[in-house]
């Protein structure tokens, strides 16, 4: 039996679009776990693999351009490095454009932490002098192709050696303006790094203190703050610009020199293929129609394929339920236990399972669009529209897909580029008219309105959904609910062929995530609704005597001005499980019989319209709430979303119903 493996943390870090995720998948395969970085909606992925006697935890850090943060992602990376420095840094750079990658690499090299650099896509530029680059950076440099797996064993070997013998030979020196070097030298003498920072080079820490106001603030107690500020003022006065910009200039100058020295070709030839594709896909006149076509195909692919699968699973569950109900070991149980098992637990499981096909398809097609490079183009095309709401172009796709189903659309906000954009988009998606709501509306409009008017009613519901999204977007922008938007400067990567394994891993991971993070909440939610509508135990389910019925009566002063009776309030409560069952619930509540007739007798067209408007905007189903909680990682945001939905629904219905009454409609 071998000794217990030693655990080692390796951090995978790079700037965006260098093949980081591909390498991560290649190294860790399917042994990945995801979560959120503390306090933010940014995904944290950790994968495991073994190297000889070491058990490696590979932490996938978000893409960052530098350690002095501009974005939320960079803030995470910076905090991670300074608070919990990894044993080894694995940095990946893009051989087809060394210049953009080397800025971060040089900064990390100066930290003094053990490090390995992987040069990705080496097949494209073979004229790179790897040993020379390695000598200059002072760390091993390994050429790899993350896509084909070429060179990955060498990379693992190099990692193993660095873990075994972490001593650095030398730390590269980046020359800066004299005053900055002096400042760094002076400060580095004063710093006594303790705890986590002990392993780092003091010159590097001094630079961090000079570059970042927030980092300096956090070590105020050492009495350094005054000295730092003095130096910072002096440096900025001398150079006439902010220190981070001076530092970036130094790094990129060094990078340029390094490239001249280590490569024979100055720069890679421009990517002609991407240019050609862009001439069509981003064409002045064709780009928008093509974008709409791609969106239409995406929507159809996800929901056109997903909805029948969902139905199939629903039927399977019903059949299984019917079979289970007659099994002796179940039919022997008490009535309420049976009801709990079937109307609560089983139904909850059914709701969870029914989302599987849609979530899977959603992420298959989204990864295709994302990995191919079209997502960045879509963001570019739609930026102007979304900019008005304080969002960037990518959010458009999430909002659009919300019109199919809110749940995957909210889970998909992870692709958005900032915390601000994610939160705002998560808050807006519940106002989209999803397919489940559409089913309710189609059912009600056909009963309450003539065939001539019904399509117009549906259209105006779509229109009002759109208007509410825009207005709420403005409202949230003014409210600054998620802080300030980040500057929109987005790299447009070259087009690449997505890989099957990449898409499959991503989809698998998302399904697992949905199962672990959202499913328990969904089942709990369904059981709560079951409890409200079935208790106290001695009254008929969903009747006036149940908790739900009593709640309906309790809230009737609130709902009467909307023209919504207590029976429909109970139906709305049922709608939390899934919007589709609002109709079924009404049938139960009105006590059976022909539902169309019942609805026609109980509800006037105006009341029906008010009911539909409320259904459109109020809190979406428990699955959506669960997705909001899982994605935002915050109960505060989840609660805010609930309240926002209820308030808007109530106001919209009130205005509609009262105006209608005033106009003499009924």
């Amino acid at each position, binding site marked *: 039996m071998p000794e217990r493996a030693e655990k080692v943390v390796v951090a995978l870090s790079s700037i965006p679009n260098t093949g980081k995720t591909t390498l991560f998948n290649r190294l860790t395969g399917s042994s990945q776990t995801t979560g959120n970085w503390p306090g933010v909606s940014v995904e944290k992925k950790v994968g495991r693999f073994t190297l000889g006697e070491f058990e490696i935890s590979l932490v996938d850090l978000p893409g960052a351009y530098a350690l002095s943060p501009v974005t939320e992602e960079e803030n995470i990376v910076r905090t991670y490095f300074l608070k919990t420095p990894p044993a080894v840094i694995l940095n990946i750079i893009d051989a087809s454009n060394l210049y953009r990658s080397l800025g971060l690499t040089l900064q990390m090299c100066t930290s003094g932490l053990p490090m390995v650099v992987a040069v990705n896509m080496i097949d494209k530029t073979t004229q790179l002098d790897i040993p020379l680059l390695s000598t200059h950076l002072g760390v091993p440099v390994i050429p790899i192709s993350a896509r084909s797996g070429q060179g990955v064993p060498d990379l693992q070997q190099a990692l193993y050696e660095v873990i075994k013998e972490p001593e650095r030979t030398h730390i590269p020196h980046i020359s800066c303006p004299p005053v900055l070097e002096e400042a760094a030298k002076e400060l580095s003498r004063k710093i006594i790094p303790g705890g986590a920072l002990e392993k780092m080079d003091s010159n590097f820490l001094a630079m961090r203190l000079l570059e970042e106001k927030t980092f300096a603030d956090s070590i105020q107690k050492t009495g350094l703050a005054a000295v730092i500020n003095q130096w910072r003022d002096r440096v900025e006065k001398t150079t006439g610009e902010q220190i981070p910009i001076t530092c970036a200039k130094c790094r990129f100058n060094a990078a340029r020199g390094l490239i001249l020295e280590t490569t024979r070709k100055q720069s890679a030839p421009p990517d002609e293929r991407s240019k050609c594709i862009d001439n069509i896909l981003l064409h*002045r006149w064709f780009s928008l129609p093509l974008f709409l076509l791609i969106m239409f195909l995406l929507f159809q692919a996800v929901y056109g394929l997903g909805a029948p699968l969902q139905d199939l699973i629903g039927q399977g569950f019903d059949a299984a339920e019917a079979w289970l109900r007659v099994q002796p070991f179940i039919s022997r149980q008490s009535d309420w236990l049976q009801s709990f098992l079937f109307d609560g637990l089983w139904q909850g499981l059914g709701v969870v399972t029914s989302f599987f096909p849609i979530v899977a398809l959603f992420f298959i097609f989204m990864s295709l669009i994302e990995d191919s490079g079209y997502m960045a183009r879509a963001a570019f095309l739609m930026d*102007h529209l979304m900019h008005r709401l304080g969002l960037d172009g990518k959010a458009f796709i999430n909002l659009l897909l919300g019109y199919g189903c809110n749940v995957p659309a909210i889970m998909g906000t992870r692709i958005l580029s900032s915390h601000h954009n994610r939160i705002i988009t998560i808050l807006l998606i519940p106002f989209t008219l999803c397919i489940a709501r559409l089913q309710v509306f189609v059912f009600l409009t056909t009963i309450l309105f003539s065939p001539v008017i019904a399509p117009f009613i549906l259209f105006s519901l779509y229109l009002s959904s759109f208007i509410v999204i825009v207005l709420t977007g403005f409202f949230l922008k003014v409210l600054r609910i998620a802080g300030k938007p*980040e500057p*929109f*400067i987005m790299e*447009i990567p070259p087009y690449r062929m997505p890989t099957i394994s990449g898409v499959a891993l991503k989809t698998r991971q998302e399904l697992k995530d949905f199962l672990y993070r959202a499913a328990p909440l969904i089942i709990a939610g369904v059981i709560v609704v079951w409890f409200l509508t079935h208790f106290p135990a001695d009254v008929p389910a969903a009747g006036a005597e149940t908790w739900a019925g009593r709640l309906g009566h309790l809230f009737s002063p609130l709902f009467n001005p909307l023209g919504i009776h207590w029976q429909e309030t109970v139906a709305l409560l049922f709608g939390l499980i899934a919007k589709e069952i609002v109709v079924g619930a009404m049938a139960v509540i009105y006590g059976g019989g022909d539902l169309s007739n019942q609805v026609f007798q109980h509800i006037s067209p105006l009341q029906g319209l008010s009911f539909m408007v409320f259904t459109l905007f109020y809190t979406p189903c428990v699955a959506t709430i669960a997705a909001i909680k899982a994605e935002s990682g915050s109960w505060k945001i989840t609660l805010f979303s609930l309240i926002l939905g209820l308030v808007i629904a109530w106001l919209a219905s009130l205005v509609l119903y009262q105006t209608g009454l005033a106009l003499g409609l009924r």
Partner: protein
Amino acid sequence: MKKTKRRFERYPGVECIIHSLGADEKIAQRLAQMGVLPGATLQIIRLAPFGTTVEVSVDSGQSFAIRDEYLTALKCQILAMPLTYPDVRLHTTYRIRTLFGGRKFQQRMETQGIHPGLFIKIVNLTKPRVILQLIEHEKTVKLGRGEAEKIIIEVTNA
């Protein structure tokens, strides 16, 4: 009256050299960390529909999407511009720098004798035709507006 700055970022094909990154700290820092520093050359590639977002490429090989307001804030010196750029003057000698279009467009221009490196004078700029005098070939060429937009010229001392 305050003279408004020429909106160079609205003309695809314009190339300019960055002199300073502008006053907004966050944006300047972002650009600097992406390696876009004073001294870098930018080219406007295209405008998004509705036009407030611009695709630019940098001489170091990246291309990115950026809002035009950020570009306006940069201090830039224009190196090259399309024939249709408002600052282009009649009867001044320019040199053709690039043909900013696909292969077909380049071939069509070639057959008319228009190619990079050529010295030209502009005889007429009134819509819808642009008339060029090709100095070396001693002939004039009529171009449509769409073609003129894709011919990128630079100022010469000659």
